[in-house]
């Protein structure tokens, strides 16, 4: 199954349960009228896009409708998808780090799926023939290292861990040295969950960040923030907070198998200009996908009756 179908299948499951698919607003032969705009606003807000971003997107559409002589709701769909996709970006070099020697530094608040993501990424890259090392720098949460070591087993890669309660930077230090001496391709660092409003914990993160640069100077960095797709507007504050301590290069949006929404990705991209790179679609090791803005937005607004939204170009 292609990415589009997987997302769509996930969304359909959800839709059967909750009956408020985002694509529904375009269904029918109706004209573009105030009722349509109102329902569209509702749709966007329900996707967690945020009241502000939703308003901006609708205002843009309101301009485009007369300019392009649009009358039917379904004609508006193409424009909307294009507008929203335009708020996101797909850098052509987004995944270059997978091919180079690099360090992936994974951060986020508690419970969003950092460890699971590290495990899935390790699995994917190992399977592609890379030599991967996982660093268990969450020395705080009970059982965190055990959790990651089970993932290392699944992925078939090395793990570097420290004692519970140890300074996470020391784990990073050891792991970075191991990566150098064992000539690993990719070092993936899992970190403990922390709220972005906890200053000392954010300082701790900065320190880990510096240690990586010190032990592995000049090695390509990929700093990923993991966000739970079910999170509301606070995700923007999370992204800002973490961007303040490490130079974020991408976002991982997890648990998309459970929500037809993820509009928060749009809000974050348009506000912080940090691209979403991966999405998590389940708890199994294969449930990781590269993110593609257009696919994602199309899937978001897919409804069962529309034809023009299909997996045409991927």
């Amino acid at each position, binding site marked *: 199954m292609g990415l589009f179908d997987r997302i769509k299948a996930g969304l359909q499951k959800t839709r059967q349960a909750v009956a408020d698919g985002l694509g529904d607003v375009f269904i029918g032969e109706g004209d573009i009228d105030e009722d349509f705009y109102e329902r569209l606003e509702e749709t966007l807000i329900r996707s967690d896009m945020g009241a*502000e971003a939703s308003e901006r997107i609708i205002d843009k559409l309101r301009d485009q409708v007369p300019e392009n002589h649009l009358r039917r709701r379904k004609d508006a769909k193409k424009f909307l998808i294009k507008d929203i996709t335009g708020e996101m970006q797909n850098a052509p070099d987004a995944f270059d780090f997978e091919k180079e020697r690099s360090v992936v530094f994974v951060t986020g608040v508690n419970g969003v799926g950092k460890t699971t993501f590290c495990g899935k990424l390790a699995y994917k890259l190992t399977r592609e023939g890379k030599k991967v090392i996982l660093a268990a720098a969450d020395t705080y949460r009970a059982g965190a290292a055990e959790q990651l070591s089970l993932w290392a087993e699944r992925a078939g890669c090395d793990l570097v861990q420290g004692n519970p309660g140890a300074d996470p930077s020391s784990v990073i230090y050891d792991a970075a040295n191991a990566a150098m001496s064992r000539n690993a391709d990719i070092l993936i660092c899992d970190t403990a969950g922390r709220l972005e409003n906890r200053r000392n914990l954010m300082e701790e993160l900065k320190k880990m960040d510096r240690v990586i640069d010190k032990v592995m100077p000049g090695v390509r960095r990929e700093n990923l923030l993991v966000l739970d797709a079910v999170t509301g507007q606070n995700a923007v504050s999370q992204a800002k907070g973490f961007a303040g301590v490490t130079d974020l290069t991408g976002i991982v949006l997890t648990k998309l198998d459970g929500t037809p929404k993820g509009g928060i990705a749009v809000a974050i991209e348009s506000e912080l200009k940090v691209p979403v790179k991966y999405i998590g679609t389940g708890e199994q090791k294969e449930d990781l996908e590269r993110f593609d803005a257009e696919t994602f937005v199309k899937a978001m607004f897919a409804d069962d009756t529309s034809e023009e939204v299909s997996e045409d170009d991927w």
Partner: protein
Amino acid sequence: MAFESLSDKLQQTFKTLRGKGRLTEEDVRLAMKDVRMALLEADVNYSVVKDFTSRIREQAVGSDVMNGLNPAQSVIKLVKDELVELLGGEQAELVFQPGKSLTVIMMCGLQGSGKTTTAVKIAGKLREKGKKSLLAAGDVYRPAAIDQLKINAEKLGVDVFSMGTEVSPVDIAEKAVEEAKKGEYNVLIIDTAGRLQIDDRMMEELQEIKKRIVVHQTLLAIDAMTGQEAVNVASEFDKRIGVDALVITKLDSDTRGGAVLSVRAVTGKPVVYAGTGEKLDAIELFYPDRMADRILGMGDVLSLIEKAERNIDIDEDTGRSMVSRMKKGRLNYNDYLLSMQQMKGMGGLKSILGLMPGLGTKQLTEAADQVDDRELARTEAIILSMTEAERDNPKLMNPSRKRRIAAGAGLDIAEVNRFIKKFEQGQKFMKQMPGMLRGHGNNPFGF
């Protein structure tokens, strides 16, 4: 995000309506636009917001502006009271079986919502009340979930019942009840794996547990940072397995926490605990009143407003013409003097500035805090040394007048110059309202 707190926006919306005795439909409509936006940005569910604002609209139209409050404050108060009501009004607590008999609690919720930590925290909290709890390790799916439960429980000295990961959670639950009865525990708390509300197979597992054993309290853990989806999560869990009470987790984050309102509104279930940190004692009872303030983003705005209202004694007319001059950047030295004198009695300048568009309560408090009493006294001396004409028309100021004023106030000319410059800058600053002032810690006069 360019989000000002609700009270600030409402003050703005209503500043022209000040002094009204009764709320008209138009006043309320305007106010509700702001309330709606605030609630949506706080992640309150769209439908919940819709119902809420229409209910308030009905109530508010035609009602009297409350004594001592202006229309904006009256609406805030109404909104807040209604929010508190929606959030449950009174504090709620877990319901236990009578006497020493076993109460079985089952945790449930999405992945990462904080069930395991909360289960341990509750056991710790109950021990303070003299109840002995047993924790059952029912998350056989997430790698090392059982380790997490065991390590944390051990820290608090709470017992754990585990059968490893090869046994079904239903069997674990059943055995755990036997074990709890045998060991004469008062409470059994069953931890379960996180699951999506749309995952049929996993939801059936919980149904199965509830068929096999008697669960007295099913607790749903909801992450305070959840967005619009919170409503679907909560109502699906409730519909499929039956939820008795809610636990809100991660309230120490700086989310506004609209999800709490959403789940409370759609399920009608009480919130019995709030998790406020990673430490195992970071769990509190839930205070609907504080939560309402938090969702609205107003902190203790109401009390601040009330304080200011009590202290202010500028009459309505003076206040209004002052504001109008202020907006044009034509404030005179008399206005300055008046507000300064009131400042001493607390709340004066704050209240006046509070009428200005875009000035937040936070900025007001900061500005007021920066005031240096001695400097105030010197400034007062300077203004009092001016002629009536000079006070009325700041444009008259020239070097020889300044020299005279300095002599009169017993101050150095440099000090007079500095004050006048500050004053003039303040004027310019105000003309560029509201954009400039926003987010600026200093008050426009710069004292």
